[in-house]
C-alpha cells in the first residue's frame, strides 16, 4: 500500500515530446555541425576559407572531410567535441536531438542534395504505413559498449514513457515490426542478427542505433567487427550518437514509423 502513495509523489514527469519540444532534449549535444564563416561563398567549387585540409586531422575517426566544401560525416563522428573545442569558428554542436536520417549519405552534413532521399522516404513510408499507430521493437546488441542499451532502456522510464506513443518492446522477433540494432556488428553476432531479422514478419524496418552501429566508430577497423551493421542487415533509419540520447532514438523510431513526413529526417 505504501508504494501506491509513493507512486503519486512526483506528479507527472513525462516529456511532451514529440507534440511539444522538450527543453532538455534541445540542449543536449546530439551531433556536430559545420559552421560557415561569414562571407564564405564557394569560389570555383572550393571553400573560400582555403585552409580546411588542416581541419581534417582534428578528428580521431576521420569524420571531417573536404568534398568541395567542409563537411562532417555524423555516421562516423563519435561526438568527442575535439573539433568544436579547437575550432569553434568552423564546428558547433547540433542542439536539436532530431538527427536521425533515412539514408546513410544524409548523415554527411551539410547535405549536398536531398533529391535522392525522396525515393527512399517514399518507399519507407509506403512500407511503414501499417506501423503508424503502434509498433513493436526487438532490440539486438551486435557488439555495443553497453551504453546504447541504457539509453534504449531509458525509453520506457517515466520521463520518456514511449508506451504512450504506441511503442512497445517485445521479446520475440516474430512479433516485432522494428529491429533496433546497436554495436559495431561483430563477426560473432552476424549470424544471430541475421536470424533475428529473418524471423521477423513483413513489413519490417531496421534502425542502426548509434555511431558504432552505423560505421564501427572508433572500434573500426578491427579483425573481429564492423564496419557497422549495414553489411549484415538492410538499414532503413540511421541514428548517430555515441551513444544516441533517448530523444535521438525516439526521433529515429518515429521516423521508422513513417510519422515524420516532411520533417528533417
Amino acid at each position, binding site marked *: 500500500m505504501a*508504494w*501506491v502513495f*509513493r507512486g503519486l509523489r512526483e506528479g507527472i514527469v513525462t516529456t511532451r515530446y514529440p507534440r511539444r519540444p522538450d527543453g532538455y532534449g534541445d540542449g543536449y549535444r546530439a551531433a556536430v555541425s559545420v559552421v560557415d564563416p561569414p562571407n564564405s561563398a564557394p569560389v570555383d567549387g572550393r571553400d573560400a576559407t582555403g585552409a580546411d585540409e588542416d581541419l581534417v586531422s582534428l578528428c*580521431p575517426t576521420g569524420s571531417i572531410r573536404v568534398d568541395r566544401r567542409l563537411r562532417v560525416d555524423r555516421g562516423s563522428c563519435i561526438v568527442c567535441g575535439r573539433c568544436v573545442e579547437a575550432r569553434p569558428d568552423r564546428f558547433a554542436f547540433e542542439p536539436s536531438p532530431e538527427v536521425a536520417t533515412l539514408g546513410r549519405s544524409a548523415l554527411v552534413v551539410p547535405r549536398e542534395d536531398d533529391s535522392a532521399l525522396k525515393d527512399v522516404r517514399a518507399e519507407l513510408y509506403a512500407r511503414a504505413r501499417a506501423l503508424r499507430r503502434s509498433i513493436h521493437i526487438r532490440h539486438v546488441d551486435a*557488439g555495443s559498449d553497453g551504453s546504447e542499451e541504457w539509453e*534504449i532502456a531509458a525509453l520506457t*522510464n517515466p520521463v520518456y514513457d514511449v508506451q504512450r506513443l504506441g511503442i512497445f518492446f517485445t521479446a520475440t522477433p516474430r512479433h516485432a515490426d522494428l529491429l533496433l540494432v546497436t554495436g559495431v556488428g561483430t*563477426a560473432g*553476432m552476424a549470424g544471430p542478427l541475421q536470424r533475428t531479422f529473418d524471423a521477423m514478419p513483413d513489413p519490417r524496418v531496421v534502425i542502426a542505433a548509434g555511431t558504432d552501429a552505423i560505421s564501427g566508430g572508433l572500434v573500426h577497423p578491427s579483425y573481429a567487427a564492423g564496419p557497422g551493421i549495414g553489411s549484415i542487415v538492410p538499414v532503413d533509419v540511421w541514428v548517430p550518437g555515441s*551513444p544516441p540520447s533517448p530523444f535521438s532514438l525516439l526521433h529515429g523510431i518515429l521516423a521508422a514509423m513513417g510519422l515524420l513526413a516532411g520533417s528533417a529526417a
Partner: protein
Amino acid sequence: MSPAPNPVLIAPARLAESVAAAVAAGGRFAGLVATARGDDSTVLRALVANPRHFSTIEATLEPGSKRYPAVAALVAAAAWYEREICDLFGLEPVGHPRLDPLVLPLRPEEPRPRPGGSDDLPRLEPHVAALSGHVSGEGVFTIPYGPVRSGVFESVEYLVETPGEEIPHLRTRVYHKHRGLDRRFGDLMVDDAVLLAERVEGTASVAHAMALCQALETLGEVEPPRCAQLVRAVHAELERVAVHLDSIIRHTEGAGQAVAYARMTLYKERILRLRARLCGHRFGRGVVVPGGVGGPLQLEAVEALAEVETIDRAIASDARALMATPSFLDRLRGTGMLPTAVAVEHGALGPVGRGSGFVDDARVQRPYGAYRFLGCEAATGFHGCDALARQSVRLEEIRQSFHLVRQALDKLSGSEPGPWRHDVPPPHGTVLGWVEAPHGELLYVVEAERGRLVRVKARCASFHNLALFAQAFRGDIFTDFVFIEASFGLSMAGVSG
C-alpha cells in the same frame, strides 16, 4: 602511485609456482596479461594485489615457444585469463583444467591477433565447432539462452544444463561481442586511446578513462591538478551511483515491483541528466584527459549540491521502503549464494566480493587521485553471500558515493579554479593503472615505446567475476536466474573485449 617498478623476472616453467607462492603469502591473484613482441616471443605478466600495492611476476616465452605450465593448475582464478590468452595468442598452458575457447573460437591453423604485435590480420570469423558440445545424460538437457535474449540487454549466451527445474550447471559464452579492442588500442595515438577506453565498458566510461590516464600520468611522473582530481571524483562517483541503480532496477523489474521500478529508473535518468549538465555528456565522456580534466564543472557547485541532495534523499527513502517489502526481499534472500571461501579464493571484486564479506576497495586500500584526501569508507560488514547482500552493498555504496560527491563539490567551491590539466610527456615504459570502477577493481596495463602505445590491456572486474557466476547457482532454480544475474551486475562489453 608506483606499481611494481621492478617486476620479478622468472622462467615460464616457474611462473605457475611463483604466482601460487605469492597468493599463498597473502596476495590476491588480480590477472594475467600477455603481450606479443615483434620477434614472435610473448611476455606473460601475472598481477598480484597486496594490501597496499601490486606486484608483477613476468615470464618471457622464447620466439616460437607456445607451451608453459598453466597457472590455472595451481591458481584456479587464472583459468579464464588463460583461456583468453590461448584464444588471442595461440599459447598452450599445459595442465589447464578446461581450455575451452572464450572470446575468440578459431580453427587451430588460423592466425591469432597477438595484441602487442603489428602484423596484418585477416577478418577472423568465430568457429563455433571449436566450442565444447552440449551435455548428455539421462533426463538432462541444455537450454540455450541468448545471445539475443528477451529485454534490452547486452548479448551473451548462457547454456543452462538442467534436469528440469534446478540449475546444476551453467556455461557462459561471451565470444559474440568480441570487438578486438586489445589490438585496436595498438593503432591509436595516446589521446585517441583514452576515447577508446571510454568505450570498452560504455557504462563505466569515467572509470576506464581514469585508469588509463593515471597509468600514463605515472609513466610521465605528472600529478594532475588537485581541482582536476576532484572533478574526476565527482564524475566517477555519479557513475557508480548510476551503475548501482541499474542493478537495483533490474532486481525490481524481476520481482515485479512496478512502482519501485518506475521510481528507480526516474532517479537513474536524473543522475544521467545531472552528469550531462556537469560536463555535456550523459556518460561523462570527454571529462578525463591525460594530465587532468577537459575543463571545470559546467554547473555551479551550489546548484549541483542541491540536485545531489534531492536525489540522495529520494533514493534513500525508496531504498528503505524497498528493503521493508517482503515480496521483494523473499526473491533475493538466499538466492545466488557465493560462499565467502569461494569469494576469497577467487578474489571476487567489487560488490560481488563485498557481499560475501571479501572487501578490497581500491579507493581505500590503494587510494589514488582525490581519494587520498577525501574521507572514503569501504562497504564492510555484509556477510549474507546472497543477492540480498550484494544489493545491500550497492545501496550502501550509493549513500557513500553521494557523500563523496558532496565532499568533492565542497572542496571545489572553496579552491582556486584551474589549471585543469598538466602536459603529460610521451609515454615510455610499462606501468599499471587502477581504479575502483562501479563493477569492481579495474586495471590498465600500459606498455609504451617512445610515445607509441604498444599494448593497452583493460582488465575489467566483470571479466574476473563472470568466471564465478556459474558457481552461484547451487540449489537455485530458473526463476532465480534474473536476480542472480542482476546481483552480479556484469558488463558484457568489458568481458568480451
